[in-house]
């Protein structure tokens, strides 16, 4: 059987309207034969009722979201505040002066820099490096060459005097950092015999009480 050829014609406007009307009418009749089943409608309405009310009623859900938003904002604000809080980062400084050669005066101190916490987080290298040096120094303390001197407090400053050659002054912060042998400077003798050790850059890495008095060359 061959395919029937659709007739070619030029329908008038009224004919087109009539066709459209018939099509719409046929569609409406067909639709009327397939209404939404009552059982399905009931299911849908029950579904609407259950789902809309579960797990909370709507205002509660909205309220819950708002509370979540507020709490989230507060947490962010606190975190931001903490990150912007200034923290102190110590930096080791040595100043060497020669007043009466060959007498040498060394001034060792820890200077505190104030940085926002978030910036300090990335500036800890120096501190970490020094800490690593101190740990290494502790481990290899016996391999260091010890220098002997007398530690005493001179005009609110701690000073190590090595014979009549060197006077090393150090501030309280540095002394605290050097508490490596559980020795509290406050209980030391007024003129404490000590041994001290230096790192590669000449910085002090350890101080400990010494049993033996320093031996100074007779000048």
């Amino acid at each position: 059987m061959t395919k029937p050829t659709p007739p070619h014609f030029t329908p008038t406007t009224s004919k087109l309207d009539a066709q459209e009307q018939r099509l719409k009418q046929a569609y409406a009749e067909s639709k009327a034969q397939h209404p939404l089943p009552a059982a399905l409608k009931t299911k849908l309405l029950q579904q609407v009722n259950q789902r809309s009310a579960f797990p909370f009623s709507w205002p509660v859900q909205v309220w819950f979201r708002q509370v979540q938003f507020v709490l989230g904002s507060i947490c962010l604000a606190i975190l931001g505040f903490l990150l912007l809080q200034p923290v102190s980062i110590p930096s080791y400084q040595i100043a060497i002066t020669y007043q009466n050669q060959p007498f040498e005066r060394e001034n060792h101190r820890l200077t505190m820099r104030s940085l926002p916490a978030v910036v300090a987080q990335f500036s800890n290298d120096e501190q970490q490096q020094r800490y690593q040096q101190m740990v290494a120094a502790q481990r290899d303390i016996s391999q260091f060459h010890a220098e002997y001197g007398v530690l005493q407090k001179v005009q609110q400053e701690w000073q190590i005097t090595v014979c009549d050659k060197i006077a090393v002054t150090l501030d309280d912060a540095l002394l605290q950092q050097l508490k490596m042998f559980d020795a509290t400077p406050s209980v030391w003798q007024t003129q404490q015999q000590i041994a001290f050790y230096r790192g590669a850059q000449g910085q002090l890495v350890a101080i400990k009480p010494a049993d033996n008095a320093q031996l100074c060359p007779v000048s």
Partner: protein
Amino acid sequence: MALAFLFSGRLGKASSAEALLAQFTRSGKPGYMAQLVEQCGPDLYYFLVKQSDAKMAEDVSQQTWLKVIEQHQRFAGGASFKTWLFTIGRHTLVDEMRRQQRWQTIEWDDNMSESADTEVWQKVALHQQQMAFDAHLMLLPFVQREALILQLEGFSLADIALITGQPQETIKSRLRYARQFLQQFCGVDHD
């Protein structure tokens, strides 16, 4: 029915679908959604039943309305609520058909509109006198049938393109074929 009466009695007269959805979003009262089901549920069901069968139409109807309830805040308002509803309904239907492995042949249908007409025309010729609109409609390929139903449902060309995710030119072409087919065999143009 009782549920519907309960909802509509509390919330007053029906208004536009978009207004009902907005009120539902604001208040969360299920009555507004129930009115939407009353207004658009039968249209969607008819579309689905013509594109599948009664059982699948019921399943897909339920899934579609569930999505509407859960995702009602996603309605952007760019098109009408009914367009949005039918878009969700069609996607759900296609997904369900794919899941049941009934989609492959349907995609092929679109391409056979001219070349494979012969078989359809033969079938039609055999029953030409007895066939009603429904039966002819069911002889159309899926994509042509959906375009025609959506147009008769009152959707514009742009809406149909949106619902089906196809260019308007494709929709025009599908409508032309569908209408030619129906006019030929429903006797619409034999007046």
